[in-house]
């Protein structure tokens, strides 16, 4: 039975990984050739869409979607309910929803249809130009003692039709940001999207704030965090796919956001995360992938090297910040000492000049302090961001390896099953034979899917990496220019101060 007559599901954009070699929205061109005879038997919901599909999925839920996150639909009434509920450790077979998905009827393609639908998304973007600015401000301490937390105001200004308003703000706390990242990571990482990493947790920094220690280091901590959160959100929305993710939209727009409890380090989810991270690390070492694509090999090496170099650069800049702060402190101390010396000096003109010198040095120490801040917030933090971003990129390459592994595993299993089936041919067990044949069918589908996934993720990564590199160049240049301009300003101020001092020195007689 042909499936060509199926209409696209009305307003429904559920996706799931297709099993059994059956496409939910089959490509007519490919379908007739590749569909094995047994398909019609399995093909259930041909007459109606929507609800029936649900039940189809439900039947299989126990086997296939053991740890699935809930499916997401973009229908507004169901949106709040069906948003993914946070990071789930296993690779979930959920493909990300996009705002408009139309099945590719009449479109020839050999990769997952979602890919080309993403292409379509990006084409559509041309119409609604990227115009959004997010700022994170007004850190406010809520509560007291160890339960206290910082709430930040997230303000979005945009003209994009994606949003309900043009200018709006919400209050968010740090765990909300982590929760958002967790959700995005669970949805997009395993298919090769570079999800910008969230700022790091800091138990020490946060504890200081909680206990109410208001000193320079805790103020610096809050400011570092605030600006990091801002950069994080901007990077996230700059990604054309992530921008339209309902979790992102909800994060920016909703007044109330369910607490992301799974972000706590010591929660069960947190521990599960750590366990999985360790498992991943071990796996990475054991997976020996036959890299046939030189591009990937090259890029992987490139990012490895870049990781090392960026960490080194970051360390040097942190050292610079430290030394510049020292310079500021030492200059201030010298200024005080020079002032005392000036007071002690009994020659009037020299005494005045020394006092003037003290004043100049005092102004200069403030200048150095400001410069140290620029060193920190512009240069050092940028590098820290990039170190984390490169880790995310490396993670995506690792996901590709995992996908390849999965595909290979399916292939090996298929091979085994085939061998077993061949053996069964000579026994008189028709049931077992049938079962074997069924299993083989299933596995063949899996293998095909695995291959498709692998190609998909490879394609996605290529695109993501090129987008990432373009963004990186722009981003880096912009911030470096800002940083250099701060240095220029400092030097120009220095000139002013010393030029004001010079006549004083000359006036000594």
């Amino acid at each position, binding site marked *: 039975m042909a499936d060509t007559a199926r209409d696209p599901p009305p307003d429904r954009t559920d996706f799931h990984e297709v099993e059994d070699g059956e496409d939910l929205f089959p490509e007519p061109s490919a379908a007739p050739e590749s569909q094995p005879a047994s398909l019609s038997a399995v093909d259930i919901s041909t007459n109606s869409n929507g609800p029936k599909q649900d039940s189809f999925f439900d039947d299989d839920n126990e086997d296939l979607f053991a740890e699935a996150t809930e499916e997401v639909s973009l229908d507004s009434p169901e949106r709040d309910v069906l948003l993914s509920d946070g990071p789930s450790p296993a690779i979930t077979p959920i493909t990300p929803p996009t705002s408009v998905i139309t099945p590719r009827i009449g479109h020839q393609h050999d990769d997952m249809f979602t890919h080309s639908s993403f292409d379509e998304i990006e084409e559509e973007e041309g119409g609604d130009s990227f115009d959004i600015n997010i700022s994170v401000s007004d850190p406010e301490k809520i509560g007291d003692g160890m339960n206290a937390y910082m709430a930040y105001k997230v303000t979005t200004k945009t003209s994009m039709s994606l949003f309900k308003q043009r200018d709006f703000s919400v209050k968010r706390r740090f765990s909300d940001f982590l929760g958002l990242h967790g959700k995005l990571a669970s949805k997009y990482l395993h298919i090769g999207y570079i999800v910008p990493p969230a700022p790091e947790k800091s138990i020490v920094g946060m504890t200081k704030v909680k206990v109410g220690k208001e000193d320079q280091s805790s103020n610096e901590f809050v400011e570092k965090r605030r600006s990091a959160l801002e950069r994080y959100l901007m990077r996230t929305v700059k990604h054309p796919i992530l921008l339209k993710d309902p979790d992102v939209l909800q994060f920016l727009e909703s007044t109330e956001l369910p607490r992301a409890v799974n972000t706590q380090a010591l929660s069960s989810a947190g521990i599960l995360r750590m366990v999985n991270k360790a498992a991943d690390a071990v796996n990475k070492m054991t997976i020996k992938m036959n890299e046939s694509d030189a591009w990937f090999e090259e890029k992987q090496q*490139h990012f490895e*090297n*870049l990781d090392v*170099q*960026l960490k*080194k*650069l970051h360390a*040097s*800049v942190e*050292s*610079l910040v430290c*030394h*510049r702060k*020292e*310079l500021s402190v*030492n*200059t201030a*101390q*010298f200024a005080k*000492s*020079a002032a*005392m*010396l000036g007071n*002690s*000096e*009994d*020659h009037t*003109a*020299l005494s005045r*000049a*020394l006092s003037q*010198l003290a004043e100049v040095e005092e102004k200069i120490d403030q200048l150095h302090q400001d410069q140290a801040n620029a060193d920190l917030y512009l240069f050092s933090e940028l590098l820290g961001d990039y170190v984390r971003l490169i880790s995310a990129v490396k993670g995506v390459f690792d996901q590709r390896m995992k996908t390849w592994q999965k595909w290979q595993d399916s292939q090996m299993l298929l091979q085994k099953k085939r061998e077993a089936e061949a053996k069964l041919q000579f026994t008189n067990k028709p049931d077992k034979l049938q079962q074997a044949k069924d299993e083989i069918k299933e596995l063949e589908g899996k293998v095909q899917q695995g291959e498709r996934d692998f190609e998909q993720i490879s394609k996605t990564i290529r695109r993501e990496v090129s987008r990432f*590199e373009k963004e*990186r*160049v722009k981003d*880096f*240049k912009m911030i*470096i*220019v800002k940083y*250099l*301009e701060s*240095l*220029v300003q400092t*030097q*120009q101020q*220095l*000139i002013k101060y*010393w*030029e004001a*001092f*010079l006549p004083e*020195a*000359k006036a*000594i*007689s």
Partner: protein
Amino acid sequence: MTSIDDSNKEKLRSVSVDLNNDTSLLIDIPDALCERDKVKFTVHTKTTLSTFQKPDFSVPRQHEDFIWLHDALVETEDYAGLIIPPAPPKPDFEGPREKMHKLGEGESTMTKEEYTKMKQELEAEYLAVFKKTVQVHEVFLQRLSSHPVLSKDRNFQIFLEYDQDLSVRRKNAKEMFGGFFKNMVKSADEVLISGIKEVDDFFEQEKTFLLDYFSKIKDSTAKAEKMTRSHKNIADDYIHISATLNSICAEDSTPNKKNLEKLSDLFERLRKVEGRVASDQELKLTELLRYYMRDIQAAKDLLYRRARALVDYENSNKALDKARLKGKDIAQAEDHQRQCLQKFDKLSESAKKELTSFKGRRVVAFRKNLIEMAELEIKHAKNNVSLLQGCVDLLKTN
């Protein structure tokens, strides 16, 4: 005590170069050798004075020889009323040597280029310390040669002329003086001079001023040194940043490559400027303060000697009274008292002149160095601005 005429006054002015003006006696240290811990200075003298055997000659001298000369001058009673130029400090290469050691240890963590640059920086630092020590020894001799009284000192002449190893003579000298006077002065301390009832307003003022000023300038010197070190640290950071940027650039194949190149180059130049800021600040500010700190110590020493002379005079007065009471040795006591008074008056008169000219000298030196420092700071900042602005413009247009 000859009066200081104008041409001599000129000579006593600034800390450094202007001292060597009197062609009758020109001294300089044209070169020096550094062997491990020991520095060997070549002291070169050019003179028209008949007191010397040759008109142009050189001798090798060690730091200890300079100290011997200084101590000999201090111990000479005739010079009690003069400010003896402070002895040059011992050559101290500990700083750069330690850094060189640390650099060697950290060699594996840096690229070859980075290591080379750091080594260059350190060698420059080493050289700077070397130059400084040569200069400070030179200035010491030039202060002596330009002093109307001290330039005629016999020991000074020996120092300049004696073409054999001075260490033999040094040992004899030590036995002769035994460092007696010096030790006395050192232990006499501020207790002595602050305890003396001062009759003379001028000296009262000077005493208060010098004691206070000394502690303040000592503190300023230390703080200025810390400032300079911070500048040097920043210059070192720039080296690392430039080198790492270079490494990243080498790997890069995006349009970012050019930007990284420019940035790496910029930091390399910035570090050179920062290095110069550090060394200029050191020369014009730190060294200035350090020199005058030592000079003020020398002035304080003069006050100590005067105070001792006063004590001697007061004691002689007491002795005279006692003698008159007893009726014995009155003439002796009178004589002694007269001598002490004479000595004290002579010392006071000389000291007054010395301290006044010292103030003049100090003011002029500060003025010169502060002006030069400000001008150099402006020059370096302007240089930085043009480097930075150039890079910004290049990056923006790219």
